[in-house]
């Protein structure tokens, strides 16, 4: 079955996409950069980091959406870096940098001119080197089908844990180390 072709506009550029694609995918295909932390081509979009926010306009209505989850629509007008979006991304960076001082978002911070965060760690608080992007969890679940990594807790207590009782397969695999961008797994490695 042939997919329907959809035409939309991203940052003033006419873009063709296939029905069922997301705005993020079609932007990537058109060579338009949208920053992401929790997105991975092989995995279902998770929509948690919110860096991929874009402004979409349909008719008279304009709103901010996560482009990794938003499906392309005929005639949709997308803007990927308005003032409002940049402002949101900058604050998100300020929120995440003290917790996870390393990773790709560091260069994004440089690009956006975010040097220092107005939301520093509290005295005694240590960086977790984890943005809770969930890539390791979903990779291990969906690709390796082992479910050896998971989330625990909710709200500010949420964290990544290695499920107990995992054995050699983890020692041999360690593919999550490569997928982890913020460095959590380098610190976890020491726990093995």
């Amino acid at each position, binding site marked *: 079955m042939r997919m329907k072709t959809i035409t939309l506009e991203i940052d003033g550029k006419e873009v063709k996409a296939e029905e069922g694609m997301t705005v993020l995918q079609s932007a990537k295909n058109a060579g338009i950069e949208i920053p992401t932390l929790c997105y991975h081509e092989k995995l279902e979009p998770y929509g948690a980091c*919110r860096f991929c926010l874009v402004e979409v306009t349909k008719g008279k209505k304009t709103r901010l959406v996560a482009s*990794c989850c938003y499906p392309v629509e005929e005639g949709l007008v997308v803007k990927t870096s308005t003032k*409002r979006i940049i402002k949101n991304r900058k604050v*998100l960076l300020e929120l*995440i940098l003290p917790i996870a001082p390393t990773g790709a978002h560091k260069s994004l911070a440089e690009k956006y001119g975010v040097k220092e965060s107005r939301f520093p760690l509290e005295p005694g608080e240590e960086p977790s080197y984890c*943005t809770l992007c969930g890539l390791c969890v979903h990779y291990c679940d969906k690709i390796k089908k082992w479910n050896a990594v998971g*989330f625990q807790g*909710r709200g500010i207590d949420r964290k990544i844990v290695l499920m107990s009782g995992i054995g050699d397969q983890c020692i041999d695999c360690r593919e999550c180390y490569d997928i982890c961008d913020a460095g959590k797994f380098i610190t976890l490695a020491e726990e093995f």
Partner: protein
Amino acid sequence: MPKLKSILDLENLRKEILSKIDPKKPCITICSGTGCQATGCEKVSDAFQEELKKQKLEEKVNIRKTGCHGFCEKGPIVVIYPDEICYLQVKPKDVPDIISQTIKEGKLIDYLLYIDPTTKEKIIHESEIPFYKNQKRLIFGNNRKIDPKSIEDYIALNGYSALAKALFNLTPEKVLEEVKEANLRGCGGGGFPTGRKWETTRNAPGEPKYVIVNCDEGDPGAYMDRSLMEGNPHSVLEGLIIGAYAIGSHEGFIYVRQEYPLAVENTEIAIQQAKDYGFIGENILGSGFNFMIKIHRGASAFVSGESSALMSAIEGKVGEPKSKYIHTAVKGLWDKPTCLNNVETWANVPFIINNGADWFKSMGTEGSKGTKIFSLVGKVNNTGLVEVPMGMTLREIIYNIGGGIPNNKKFKAVQTGGPSGGCIPEKFLDFPVDFDALSKLGSMMGSGGMIVMDEDTCMVDVAKYFTNFLADESCGKCIPCREGLKHMLRILNDITAGKGTEEDINRLEELAEVICDASLCALGQTAPNPVLSTLKYFRDEYEAHLKGVCPAKVCKELITYYIDPEKCQACGLCAKNCPTDAIYGEKKMVHVIDKEKCIKCGICFEICPDKFNAVSKISGDVIPLDVPKGTKIKPQKR
């Protein structure tokens, strides 16, 4: 129970039930809702059963345990029919008197009646008590008339007649049309037009289609959905079955939170009874329409009530919100078209079908029709569940129904809409309560929480309380909500501790904007409301805190307790009750608080007799120097 196979069967059953009811036979109804359970209604109903047995009146008097009446503060509530004599705060020891005097001799027991605090008049009938008289109890009114475990009670009150009407006299399209025309809006928070949602699900491609009742109700202090589900489960079931018929769904779920065991129990019983009579199952009432209902017991998290989280939980996955831009009405449970509505929303449906859209539209305002149930709590004389027509003003609800503010205190604000609602100041008390007006004021209808606050409430502290709740309840999936709320809370902690700066208020405002803009689900998107609305209407209180003053004298770090040497009469109560022995004083000597030891628990302030009124709280003003140890009191002439 024989399965009903036609509308005629149902009408015959109703006639039979009604024929067995003797309207003159006394019936003692005992409210057995959650509020009255807490005040001991079970013991009261046991006492009634025993006493009736003892006096050999079992055959002559009926007893009925009903759902919540709403005036929970005055429970256990007992209403005796046919005269509707209402007794409040009934204890088991009152029962023999009630039987021997009221039941046998028709005499009233004065001390159990409601006394109007302003007119001092005794009120006999439940419906004449101002708390009830000023309400419009459409959805909630039948709670007091039926035993929720008895389908016959519901049928006697015309129950399931709307379903019969829908199935036999109306096409699904016509049912949908009626609900759309009535302009019923969702009571679960968003106020989304119900008919439009039904239509979307009906027209969405994909089979099967599902319908769901949302009885998660995670707002602290709210219990209207619980009281409906516990007190009149058949009204929700009937609404759901009618909705399913209109939408073309044959499978429904009732999502009830685990902590509502009575709601689960009564719903299970109701489903079984409805199955037995043939209101649920195959070929309902012989109409050819099939529909099944399952109960899902949910975990106890606020966020589980969010639509995508709730559906994930029913699917057996982690109950976390998903970032989806295709409405669940189109792609919901197992990616099939799914219509999720709140308990109260569903319970409205039988009324609309029975009485028509025009009747429904005659109540309410331009944009919000019908009634709404609120949970009225806080600094108000009459707390409980109240149902009013949309458009009643806040003042009418708080003063006419709620009876005003206790202890002659001044009203300061009313918080509506649950934890992510906003605080509304006095100048808007005459605003009509409806979906649009509340949003315009920076608050919302939410699920119907209404917390009244008096002059002793610190609005920064209130904002901190709700932000803390939401930060706790955030699932933690997305960065703005998880990290943003954490920092908002830290800033509020600093401000209430007197460590805030002007820059902190800027940071609060900036975080609020980003959390609203960028959060994945509506929990985060609305979470800054308490801060934003208090900043909007009570900014002066934030500014006072920056200067080290808590105007309401609530924030511990900013207040000092002080004993006035002119007033202290050395009664010693404060010293005796101080948990940290921070007060020293001897007989006839002025008592003094050691500020180093004081933990500001406020016990001395509470316990100092009113006639002395020697302990005060100071915030901002100069704290007078303590008198030297051994200073003699100044005896007061009285």
